[in-house]
């Protein structure tokens, strides 16, 4: 086609202009289009170089990344080790847990399937809400637990109705179970979902539904009980669905832990005590904990499935604090049970000889203060043995004054008071045995008056029932034994069950003999404070010491008006304490009993101690506790 003239011939001049313009415009267009073309060609070149860089230069790196993408290592939890008691009885075990799971993508209508399921196994409203929440949160191929702990009957009904329940399957898992419920809760502890702080280096803890020990032996031996995670390498797609299994590595199952507590003895002890009472029974030769009972207690099974807010409120709002193990966390002034420490400190410091007497007129005057003896009329002349037997306060005021607080504290520390103990119960408190330096660190001076008060176990002392039991066992054995619970791990007996495993305390035999004889006298001698605690003859004789500790200070005014402890409110009444070991000449058992607001150590705590001792002899006496490690079976 050719250029056709526009209009008539008269427009020829204009046509030429137009043609010239057209040429000019075309030239400009060509240049500009060329610029555009070069830019676009350059852009393509850039893309090519970019591809070269990604695919060739960095290709190897990305190939690795693609492989990592594809392969995912998944952990699975090994079975948790069990906790066995002294006789091999399971006190923390694993129960098979049959549960119903629903995979959303395997059913056409989730709502309808749930509806059918709840006709077979009724679901509560809160359960439905939980299921819907998990359904929303998870991807459609992730199984959601509809119901835990199915009964045989429920399982049978689900299986029969399987055609109407698309996407629902029954799965076997395990859950922690404590058959002794409240009886051993404070010793065994419990498991629960790991806390934020627990999530350390063990990848196992990231598994959903994993439980870790949160208290007691469960917590202390958590690593051993937990075992090592198994792993399976699987090929996954982008949303994490497993396409196939590539490799599998079995985990290491958790090991069984056998503890020294005897369940039946523990139950017997619990039967002897009331709310607010704590009793700790040790093997006096090696420090094994045979029973550790405190009331009230709790059911550790509740923690496994999650504690409801109402339950938690109930536990934490009461004054009796069921969750707290008062044997290791309750703090009490030791009262007169501490007097053996003062006596030993005095002997050690050579500030008196055993036969030296102190006359007790019923009080000791020092400076402007008068320190009373519990016997207002006075004990008369007292030597060390009779002072312990009669629990004469004035004698020990005087001894404390002579020996000084720091030497008393150091003796107490040697007997396990106010120091950390090696018990396998996390959170055990050290307690407090005051020293001059401790008081000065608080910016307060220490006076001789303070020392005098501390001579009878009053004042700043804060000691756990466990540490008092340890003191007693050390007095009985003369060895620096530690209280412990673990007898065997994975069937292998642990160190510490033989007396020779523990070093000698290094107190002169004569001193120890004197104290033991005096403690024997407390129960069996004339003029002792706890004749009521005498054992039936067939079990031999028990040695012990009473203690009564004021909860409130009794003022001089009150004392002059005639202070009657029976007339004051219960929570003002003094605590009753008793420490004892038996038999006195070859000690097997050492024990401490603390009865909160129990009034008088001898009258209240003494009979409890006696009854517990009888139970111990009946159950463990003939075979001798600690001789034999029970067979550990899986």
């Amino acid at each position, binding site marked *: *086609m050719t*250029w*056709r003239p*526009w209009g008539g011939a008269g427009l020829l001049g204009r046509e030429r202009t*137009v043609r010239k*313009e*057209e040429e*000019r*415009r*075309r030239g*400009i*267009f*060509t240049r*500009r*289009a060329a*610029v*555009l*073309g070069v830019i*676009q*060609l350059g*852009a*393509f070149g*850039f*893309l*090519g170089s*970019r*591809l*070269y860089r*990604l*695919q*060739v230069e*960095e*290709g190897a*790196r*990305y*190939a690795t*990344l*693609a*492989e990592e*993408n*594809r392969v995912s290592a998944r952990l699975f939890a090994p079975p948790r080790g069990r906790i066995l008691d002294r006789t091999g009885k399971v006190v923390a075990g694993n129960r098979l847990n049959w549960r119903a799971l629903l995979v959303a993508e395997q059913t056409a209508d989730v709502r309808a399937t749930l509806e059918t399921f709840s006709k077979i196994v009724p679901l509560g409203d809160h359960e439905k809400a939980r299921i819907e929440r998990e359904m929303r949160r998870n991807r459609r191929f992730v199984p959601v637990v509809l119901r835990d702990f199915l009964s045989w009957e429920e399982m049978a009904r689900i299986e029969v109705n399987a055609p109407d329940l698309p996407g629902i399957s029954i799965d076997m898992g395990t859950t922690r179970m404590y058959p002794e419920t409240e009886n051993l809760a404070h010793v065994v502890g419990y498991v629960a979902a790991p806390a934020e702080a627990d999530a350390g280096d063990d990848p196992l803890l990231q598994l959903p539904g994993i439980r870790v020990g949160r208290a007691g032996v469960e917590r202390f031996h958590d690593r051993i009980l937990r075992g090592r995670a198994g792993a399976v390498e699987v*090929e*996954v*797609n*982008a*949303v994490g669905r497993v*396409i196939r299994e590539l490799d599998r590595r079995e985990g290491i199952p958790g090991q069984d832990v056998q503890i020294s507590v005897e369940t039946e003895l523990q139950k017997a002890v619990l039967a002897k005590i009331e709310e607010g009472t704590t009793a700790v029974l040790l093997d006096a030769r090696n420090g094994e904990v045979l029973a550790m009972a405190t009331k009230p207690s709790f059911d550790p099974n509740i923690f496994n499935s999650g504690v409801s807010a109402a339950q938690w409120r109930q536990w934490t709002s009461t004054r009796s604090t069921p969750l707290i193990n008062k044997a290791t966390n309750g703090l009490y002034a030791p009262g007169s049970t501490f007097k053996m420490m003062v006596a030993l400190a005095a002997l050690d410091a050579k500030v008196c000889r055993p036969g030296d007497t102190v006359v007790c007129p019923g009080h000791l005057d020092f400076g402007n203060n008068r320190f009373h003896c519990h016997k207002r009329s006075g004990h008369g002349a007292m030597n060390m043995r009779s002072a312990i037997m009669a629990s004469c306060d004035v004698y020990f005021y005087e001894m404390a004054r002579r020996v000084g607080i720091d030497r008393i504290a150091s003796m107490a520390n040697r007997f396990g008071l106010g120091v950390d103990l090696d018990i396998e119960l996390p959170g055990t408190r050290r307690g407090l045995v005051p020293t001059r330096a401790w008081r000065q660190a608080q910016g307060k001076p220490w006076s001789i008056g303070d020392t005098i008060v501390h001579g009878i176990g009053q004042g700043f002392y804060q000691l756990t029932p466990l540490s008092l039991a340890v003191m007693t066992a050390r007095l009985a054995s003369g060895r620096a034994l530690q209280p412990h619970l673990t007898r065997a791990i994975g069937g292998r007996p642990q160190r510490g069950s033989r007396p020779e495993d523990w070093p000698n305390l290094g107190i002169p035999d004569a001193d120890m003999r004197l104290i033991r004889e005096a403690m024997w006298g407390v129960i069996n001698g004339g003029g002792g404070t706890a004749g009521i605690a005498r054992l039936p003859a067939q079990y031999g004789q028990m040695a012990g010491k009473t203690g009564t500790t004021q909860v409130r200070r009794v003022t001089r005014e009150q004392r002059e008006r005639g202070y009657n402890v029976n007339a004051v409110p219960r929570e003002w009444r003094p605590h009753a304490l008793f420490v004892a070991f038996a038999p006195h000449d070859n000690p097997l058992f050492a024990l401490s009993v603390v009865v909160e607001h129990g009034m008088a150590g001898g009258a209240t705590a003494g009979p409890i101690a006696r009854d517990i001792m009888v139970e111990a002899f009946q159950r463990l006496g003939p075979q001798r506790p600690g001789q034999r490690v029970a067979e550990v079976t899986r």
Partner: protein
Amino acid sequence: MIFERRLLTRDRGAGILEKFWQIPWSFVVLLCAVAAVGYVALLSAGSGNPDTYAQKHAIRFGFGLVLMLGLAMIDIRVIARFAWLGYLGGVALLVLVLVHGNVGKGAQRWIDIGPVQLQPSELMKIMLVLGLASWFHRASWEKVGNPLFLIPPAIAVLVPVGLILKQPNLGTALITGMVGAAVFWAAGMRWWKFAIGFAAIGVAAPIAYERLHDYQRARITTFLDPESDPLGAGYNIIQSKIALGSGGLWGKGFLQGTQGHLNFLPEKQTDFIFTMIAEEFGLVGALTTLTMLLLVVVFCYLVAFRSKHQFGRLLAIGLGTNFFLYVFVNVAMVTGSIPVGGVPLPLISHGGSAMITVMLGFGLLLSAYVHRDAEMGPMRE
């Protein structure tokens, strides 16, 4: 009004058959080859099952081919004459999609026309080129130099850009603006006006950004820097780079791409189809595909240089730039070079809108080629 009726009627006599032979069949074969690459890639995206994506893709391409060849037969002068109608129609559709369109990925993007989903923003780019080419067709160098003459086409660009921004679809809005700018450039707008224009945008953008609400800013930040959102858009880019890189020189083989087949690649059948190709066929496959797409752009330039009329030239350069921007933005995106999303790879990605509009554009291009010597009337002073 603009075109002489007499000439139109005379040219119509050239005969459909004669025109049909004028069609550059090598270009049609090239398009078929590109679509075939798309078919193979979509076959892989569907894990070897053609029913998933590939079959639909082939049918759509077939439909597009017929549309393209049909449009090629229409006289370029008719097209030029009704260009403004096409433009207004495009704007009307954009308004329509804003009023009641379907929301996809947080933006109103398409409307349903019977069984077909149409993204008016795709169509708008073609219509904008058409409208601008018609506007500048008869403008002399002097006329283009007149700022007043530039105001109407500038508005014609800004209106659809604004509407697309409102969807919101920043990526397509930018591409639309750039296509418009390319036509302005080719039409002869003075370079210093370009400089001023870009400078003005450079100054205005931060000010506009300042005036935005925090949530709007956050949207732009994520949009511009997907790595700041590694589980959202950033995840896609990272996985795409892994897929590309692990493809290596020769690729993992057809259907062997782990990234794509294990679904690490998001949107593998649409925006990330190029990644699929690069993973399975390596650098060789990727560069081959890229070269084929480059040839399509080159053809647009050939049409532009061979056209005797400014309308055809501008149309071809605009359509070529549009196609180039599709390819560049898409490939740059999947290689993690630029942080833009939502742009398909034309003729290869799964999806009807882009395929139909691209083929429609090529229909216009072919018409410009077939009628490259047509008499289009004189320019105005």
